[in-house]
């Protein structure tokens, strides 16, 4: 309680605007909400004692600081808003900044691509960064894959991880049981995942929005539960071990005599394999990107986007909405499956634990944060989500808090994602981006 009274900054009192009372009232309400919220979360700390009993102690000073911060912050935000002048929807990001952003936007993609190609050269000796880069690229690929379903076709899919799992287990089981190589299994894993995408698609064709989301969510869980319980095939919770590593045209990247290092006459280093994996996932991700960009300019891709805009109009134009939806599910699943196969070969070990709902949510967050339908936005969002999460590792228990806050702020400033506007697929004179206000989000 004391936190509320200590910290009214002098600015609030000296401000002679007629709304001073309003600002104070708003700040008081915010502070009260913060007090209620934080009183148990921060005010009381509980822990299990040495004999298992409940030990708790109060942290009212921390609580006071938090509530004071909310109070002061609320006043500060209101004052900033006044100083900024009346804010309408257009002015949230000033036009000058927007035009600068769009100019930078055109340069971001090529620069990012060149930089990505150079990552193994620049960070050859930093295993941690290479591993992180592979992880980021995996999520870029997953994001691009899901972008087809959610961003283009407007079908909310909360079970995307199922296709990731199908791809991973396809490769793992085919390789360990039949000794097939990665390069043969990769397309097979993609095709199997696409097949499951169609299977999922059929029952959910008539569903829209929330209902579609729930069924896809359930589908993701079903796949995971099957993986856990079908012990004879999948090894259950123990997973599949000893998944072979990919080879370069049949040449293994091992220290053995027939390994790549020995053949080239150079000293073996485990980094070779990491770099090799990096370029595999980069190639897969770029393939995903290329195919998606191509598809958008083909009638199929345009039909996906038209479906997102207005399904009834699509039917009136003779577009088979059933096959259009199924192809969207299948294409998204195909890329998920390819990424899954890569995941399996990279880890060498997979278990159902890697394919929880958390992964689906993460990939969906990447797509939404990036701007639904935008390839560049999704790539940036994957970098921010996966890379940023690692960046905050030093913050320990506050990592999630900071991360959540960053996401909330981003969604306030750019409610339609980093790249919210839409680029037309065909133009007569001049391609001009379409404002996100006009682009529909789809209703499933």
């Amino acid at each position, binding site marked *: 309680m004391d936190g509320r009274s200590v910290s009214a900054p002098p600015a609030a009192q000296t401000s002679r605007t007629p709304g001073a009372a309003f600002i104070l009232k708003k700040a008081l309400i915010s502070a009260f909400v913060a007090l209620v919220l934080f009183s148990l979360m921060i005010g009381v700390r509980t822990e299990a004692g040495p004999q298992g009993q409940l030990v708790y102690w109060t942290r009212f000073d921390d609580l006071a600081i938090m509530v004071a911060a909310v109070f002061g912050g609320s006043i500060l935000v209101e004052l900033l808003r006044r100083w900024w002048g009346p804010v309408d929807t257009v002015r949230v990001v000033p036009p000058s900044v927007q035009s600068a952003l769009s100019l930078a936007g055109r340069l971001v993609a090529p620069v990012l691509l060149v930089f990505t190609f150079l990552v193994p050269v620049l960070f050859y000796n930093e295993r941690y960064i290479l591993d992180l880069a592979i992880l980021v690229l995996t999520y870029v690929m997953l994001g691009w894959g899901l972008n087809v379903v959610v961003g283009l076709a407007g079908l909310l899919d909360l079970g995307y991880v199922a296709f990731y799992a199908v791809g991973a287990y396809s490769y793992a089981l085919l390789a360990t049981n039949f000794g097939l190589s990665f390069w043969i299994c990769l397309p097979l894993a993609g095709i199997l995942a696409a097949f499951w995408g169609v299977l999922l698609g059929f029952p959910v064709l008539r569903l829209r929005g929330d209902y579609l989301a729930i069924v896809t969510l359930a589908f993701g869980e079903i796949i995971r539960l099957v993986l856990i319980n079908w012990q004879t095939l999948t090894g259950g919770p123990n997973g599949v071990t000893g998944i072979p590593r990919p080879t370069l045209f049949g040449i293994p990247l091992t220290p053995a005599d027939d390994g790549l290092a020995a053949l080239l006459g150079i000293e073996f280093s485990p980094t070779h394999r990491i770099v090799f994996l990096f370029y595999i996932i980069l190639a897969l991700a770029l393939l995903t990107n290329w195919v998606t960009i191509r*598809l958008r300019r083909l009638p199929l891709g345009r039909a996906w986007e038209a479906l997102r805009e207005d399904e009834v109009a699509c039917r009136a134009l003779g577009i088979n909405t059933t096959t259009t939806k199924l192809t969207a599910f299948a294409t998204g699943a195909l890329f998920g499956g390819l990424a899954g196969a890569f995941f399996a070969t990279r880890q060498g070990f997979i278990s159902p634990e890697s394919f929880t709902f958390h992964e689906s949510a993460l990939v969906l967050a990447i797509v939404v944060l990036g701007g639904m339908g935008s390839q560049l936005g999704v790539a940036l969002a994957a970098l921010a989500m996966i890379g940023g999460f690692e960046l905050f590792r030093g913050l320990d228990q506050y990592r999630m808090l900071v991360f959540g806050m960053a996401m909330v702020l981003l969604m306030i400033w750019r409610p339609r994602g980093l790249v919210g506007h839409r680029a037309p697929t065909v133009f007569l004179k001049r391609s001009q981006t379409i404002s996100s206000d006009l682009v529909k989000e789809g209703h499933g």
Partner: protein
Amino acid sequence: MSGDPILSVDRLSMRFGGIVAVNDLSFDAERRKITALIGPNGAGKTTVFNCITGFYKPTSGAIGLTHDDGRAIRLERLNDFRIAKLAKVARTFQNIRLFPGMTALENLMVAQHNALMRASGLTFLGLIGAPSWHHAEQAAIDLARTWLERIGLLDRADDAAGNLPYGDQRRLEIARAMCTQPALLCLDEPAAGLNARESAALSELLLSIRADQGASILLIEHDMSVVMQISDHVVVMDHGVKIAEGTPREVRDDPKVIAAYLGADEEEAIAVMESGT
């Protein structure tokens, strides 16, 4: 009526639970003519449209479509997108249904989906960039350009459809329907919300579509100036039944039509409704 009907609706009925929206309705739409379906609000015009274009499955009755080559199609047996795809019936909507986040040009490209799908070898030829696909795509863009020019929107081809003024959106929706190369064009209140000048331009557009494309047009309209000016044949509905049909002049002077519109004789209207059920 004599002649060569492209569409013949025979004893069409549509019930929603206990409500009879369309009752035993029969009429023909002549080939290369403009047929207007008029009537007061709630007469069941849009329901008839939805039955013809496959959005509703009629409770009973038959809807026959005869193409120029003599191919006859029973529309009530087709459903959903197949009516537009196979029977070549295109429609517009009372409340405009463009793809607002796509450009005017893209809207017209989506309309050519089925033709382009074939040309792109179900996407695979297009994916590898086969020359035949590029030719087909260019042809589709040219067709779209022609239509944009006709509706006076060539300058705004690359603007988002949702950004266009209302009247332009109406015309764009008609152009989009025409890009499907339909045999029968069904327009649901195309002049709704247009001012007098725009209505006149719309009438001209529809007349030119009939003359140049040889399209048959069926339209629902409340704007009597448009109906009287361009229709070859008018069918009047009230409370789900046909109360009159004929040339615009005949219909205009029909006392039953006047009664239905003015609501002068409510008892008669009730009698008509009851005799229908």
